[in-house]
């Protein structure tokens, strides 16, 4: 099943996909166009841990002139950088290079501590899509990628759906693509990840306990290009969903 969280008539609702529309938890059916989309994530009692991978596809590492890492390059994002499907992301004025990154997101389903990779999928609640925007003008070689590049307000759209793990038998074989104003600019497959989902769950849970609702953004393949105000950027993963976002220029 595909789950969403939406704002409709001033209230937040859990919803499920229903024949192209949305079925609200209270039984009402509403059109997808009539709602405002939130990240498809239930609130967590403590701030959600959002782990994100850099250089996790060999081709992207090459594109950015880095050798593939021996261990995961991971950074952390705060929850306030998240925004929903069909929302806007702001491009600061005067920047030269702001690019999308289409990423498969793992949503943790139960407390994970020292999990073995063979058991890793038991700890997955489901999957969604993130667009992990970066503004490269602000890159500095201190805790790189630094938060000024990666943790800006509105710069991590996520959704539209949280898709149950049971519906995705093999998350390591899904096509990803990004279009900018309808033109295909990025194309890859999750099978090309350097560190796959079971590895990542084993690796992180070896030193930090993951809780239900925590996220792992698994990195992006080759093909990132600059996005300008007005561009409609669609990051899409086979069987998971197509996440639509529009760039807005800061005045």
């Amino acid at each position, binding site marked *: 099943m595909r789950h969403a969280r939406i704002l409709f008539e001033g209230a937040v609702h859990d919803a499920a996909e229903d024949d192209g529309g949305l079925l609200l938890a209270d039984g009402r059916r509403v059109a997808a166009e009539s709602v405002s989309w939130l990240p498809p994530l239930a609130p967590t009692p*403590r*701030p*959600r*841990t959002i*782990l994100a991978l850099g250089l996790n596809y060999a081709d992207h590492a090459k594109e950015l002139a880095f050798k593939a890492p021996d261990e995961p*390059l*991971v*950074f*952390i*994002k*705060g*929850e*306030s*950088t998240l925004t929903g499907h069909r929302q806007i992301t702001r491009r600061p004025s005067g920047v030269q290079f702001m690019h999308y990154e289409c990423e498969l997101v793992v949503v943790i389903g139960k407390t994970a*501590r020292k999990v073995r990779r063979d058991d890793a999928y038991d700890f997955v609640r489901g999957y969604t899509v993130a667009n992990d925007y970066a503004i490269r003008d*602000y890159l*500095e*070689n*201190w*805790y*790189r*990628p*630094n*938060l*000024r590049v990666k*943790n*800006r*307000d509105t710069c991590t759209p996520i959704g539209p759906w949280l898709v149950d793990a049971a519906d995705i038998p093999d998350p390591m074989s899904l096509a990803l693509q990004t279009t900018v104003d309808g033109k295909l600019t990025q194309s890859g497959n999750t099978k090309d990840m350097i560190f796959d989902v079971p590895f990542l769950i084993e690796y992180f849970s070896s*030193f*930090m*306990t*993951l*809780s239900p609702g925590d996220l792992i953004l698994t990195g992006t393949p080759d093909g990132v290009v600059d996005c300008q105000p007005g561009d409609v950027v669609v990051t899409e993963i086979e069987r998971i969903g197509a996440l639509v976002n529009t760039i807005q220029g800061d005045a």
Partner: protein
Amino acid sequence: MSYLPSGTVYGVLLNFREEFDALRPQMYAPPYNAPPVAPVLYLKTANTWSTHGSAIPVPARVPEVKVGATVGMVIGAQGDVEGFVLMNDLSIPHTSFFRPPVRFKCLDGFLGIGAAMLDAQEVSDPADFRLEVRINGEPRQFVDFSQTMRSAEQLLSDVGAFMTLAHGEVLMLGCGAGRPRARVGDRIEISAPGFDTLVNTLVGEAA
């Protein structure tokens, strides 16, 4: 009940002059190539949070941890400062600051958190904070918040220029130079005038 943050906890690297100056000779060489311009931030995820008085587990592979005595600035509803709380930002010692320090800083329990928040109205100037770190009763570090690179106000403003800190989120003001190390069995006390002392003990992680 002990205070726990309701939002994300952020830390800042190199916010004390002595620490910054000590690293300055390396800042122009690879991999850094230039001193940092914007505040260099990191996160202490919720799994790291340890209440005052609790035992903090240290994995067997980690012989020593670095103590990071600091003050967390708690953000108010209007983006103002609601209060301040003592924090013990533990790390596995590491020398490179090129990549994010997740595996050094985000271990379970690696952030001691003071039992109570000191209301901002009780604080005339965060630059007046003076912290003392004792390990097993021995004084090991004195942190003088008049020696920061960015004042609390400046830090809040420079961070706010690129991301919004929400109500209940916490921005730690940095750890001073000469941070002491501690090991399993040690009792770490962080005290400061106006605050209740923060105490945590390091214990071996259960296998």
